[in-house]
């Protein structure tokens, strides 16, 4: 019971902190102080109090998009275990459910963007869907590798790894999967080198441009859902790159939180040391991620 409560607590409260950690890291590299660590929380509180401006050309699709996105991402968050603890919901084949929940979120985000009829938002939606064609197979290959390694078909089971621990035979595919998943994490959460979350240039955006017309509480919902998504992908990736545990309950929870913050710092470092890719080269990067995960699978089935 306490596991579920802590899971829920972390899932609901921690995601905006990651954005703060990333921004602090980037600021440090730029020689700046940067926004406060908890700025994302302040922003959400501010947006919740604001009035919404709804364009008269939009329909219910525009309003329901962010809500469905948040609901599906939250649901996905209940399927992914944190650290060595089990997820609140687990059933055989839930990895497919997980992947399509994220697909549904994407569908409604892009539908809401297209609903505005703005040329910018249409462009963003086209980009988002194009890149998803490459990142989704990468996720599937990664999940297949994990299922094969662990012999389990639930996310909780496969992410906790094989009962006998990891062996040399599974190390190579898992390293490939870790690289592939990290790239997918950056792409799915609109980080550099794929997207630039801090830019104001509409023509270069992918995710941000799809939500340009949303305002007030709806924008808050979108930002919160985006933070959740980063948190979920992070929790997923941590199982592959840092499957450590101490055996003590409180220590393992702290370990998970610490690892999560370290991951945010790593993302901040990546964003600080490189420029964005050319838009048409993003496909190469994502194809690369897909191949990494695919080869990981090939290594296991040979």
């Amino acid at each position: 019971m306490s596991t579920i409560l802590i899971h829920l607590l972390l899932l609901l409260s921690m995601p905006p902190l990651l954005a703060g950690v990333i921004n602090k890291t980037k600021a440090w590299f730029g020689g700046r102080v940067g926004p406060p660590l908890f700025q994302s929380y302040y922003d959400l509180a501010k947006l919740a109090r604001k009035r919404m401006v709804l364009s008269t050309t939009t329909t219910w699709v525009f309003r329901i998009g962010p809500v469905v996105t948040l609901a599906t991402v939250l649901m996905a968050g209940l399927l992914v275990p944190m650290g060595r603890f089990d997820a609140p919901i687990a059933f055989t084949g839930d990895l497919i459910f997980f992947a399509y929940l994220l697909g549904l979120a994407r569908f409604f985000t892009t539908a809401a963007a297209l609903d505005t009829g703005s040329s910018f938002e249409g462009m963003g939606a086209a980009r988002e869907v194009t890149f998803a064609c490459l990142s989704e197979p990468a996720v599937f290959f990664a999940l297949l590798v994990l299922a094969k390694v662990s012999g389990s078909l639930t996310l909780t089971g496969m992410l906790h790894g094989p009962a006998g621990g990891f062996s040399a035979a599974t190390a190579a595919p898992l390293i490939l999967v870790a690289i592939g998943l990290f790239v997918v994490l950056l792409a799915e959460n609109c980080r550099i080198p794929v997207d630039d979350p801090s830019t104001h240039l509409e023509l270069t955006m992918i995710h941000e441009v799809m939500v340009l017309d949303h305002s007030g509480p709806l924008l808050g919902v979108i930002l919160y859902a985006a933070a959740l998504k980063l948190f979920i992908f992070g929790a997923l990736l941590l199982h592959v790159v840092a499957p450590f545990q101490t055996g003590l309950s409180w220590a393992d929870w702290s370990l998970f939180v610490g690892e999560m913050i370290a991951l945010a710092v790593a993302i901040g470092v990546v964003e600080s040391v490189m420029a964005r890719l050319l838009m048409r080269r993003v496909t190469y990067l994502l194809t690369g991620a897909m191949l990494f995960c695919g080869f990981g699978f090939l290594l296991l089935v040979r």
Partner: protein
Amino acid sequence: MSRDGAQTAAFTNGRSIELDAIPTLTLEGFEDAVLDAVADGERVAAMFGAAGERAAEMLLYVVLASDHENRLGVARTVIDAERFPSLTPRCPQVHLFEREIAEQFGVRPEGHPWLKPVRYHRSWTGRDAWGRAAHEAILPGVTEFYRVEGDEVHEVAVGPVHAGVIEPGHFRFQCHGEQVFHLEIALGYQHRGVEQALIGGPGPRSIHYAETAAGDTTIAHATAYCQVVEALARCQKSARAQTLRGVALELERLANHVGDLGALANDVGFLPTASYCGRIRGEFLNMTALLCGNRFGRGMVRPGGVGFGVDDARVAELLKRLEDAAEDTAVAVNLLWDTPSVMARFEDIGRLPKQVAVDLGIVGPAARASGLSRDVRQDQPSGIFRFAHLPVSTYDAGDVFARAYVRWLEIQQSTDFIREQLSAIPSGEVRVAVGALSPDRLVVALNEGWRGEVCHVAITDFEGRFGSYKIVDPSFHNWSGLAYALRNQQISDFPVCNKSFNLSYCGHDL
């Protein structure tokens, strides 16, 4: 070339010429003069209209710059006040000048392939080149745009209100997926009537109009204005004042070039250089403030010299700050060239071929990045630049990288120049009195601002007041270059291309 010399009156930058000495050519002679000169490698620095002796006619002036012979040529012709044959089909670089003349005087350049308003204001004469009624509102950007038709071709409109805090301008992209087929730029939102306001001057406000023609080019515009006044008043300024003007001009270049490199880094999401250059730009602006109390150089350049002198302590402080800033700049900028992911975003993007740059009459770092050796400081030197030579920095690629790299080369040259000039600054008064202007003369003052050639042309009336005043900001030439550079590029690369030109909206709109 001798044939050319016979057609136009030759003079040099910053010298005035009697109106009577300017040949009034026949229309054919005028066209030949322009076409021959351009074929010989000269540039159209300015082309403008002026009221004629009778209401049914007007005067058309052209100022040609021969960069290789370091001289200017001027000619004029009398045209019908209703229409004249357009030169644009045979000489593309006058296309915007002709549109401007059409808008200001309500005269129609017949055969102009793309005759649209430039700044969306009423004509000065009451006639209208587009036959719009007097009660019809004229609003910027409300006009026909070039359109590409076909399946999957879509149009993206950006501005005039932008997401960042920048000036207003409207951009229309004709796209096929992510690829840009055509970009059309509509400006005019910043039109304030600077040239009109200067007519009848010089008055107490004139220098301020010049300083604010384009806020980030304060020194270059103010210097050009002062050169105009000084040439007409036959005033001899001191060597000390000329040195200080040169130092201020190069400080302006340093601040803007460093800022541009930071902005380019920011547009490709490369944070370290973006953050550092933003700060270092402030250091250079503060050095200008050390000279005159204003970060953008307002009040620095005044007719007869400069508004503020310097003492030895201030020079020493300036040199010290210069060394520190130069060191930081080198670190921040070299980070760009050493980062492969940045270079991948700069190289081969937004290419402006050399011949296109020649045809469109591109100036400044954008021209030099396309391999043209065009620099007023070398070609038409005035003031301190007649005595101290700055090597011209060029690169041949014509892409975003070239425009960024030329800026870096110029940063180094300008730093050396300031160091050299401040170490041996001549003594003397910094400002002398300026007398009345001579009547019935024309003067052209060219200056290499950080963005390129700043051109001021003034014609005095019989009382020694400005009868006409023409300002050509480098942006006026270069906006077409940006539109061309975007052809067949990815639309997501527009911001970085735009920043690599970094043109002024208010300098164009005046």
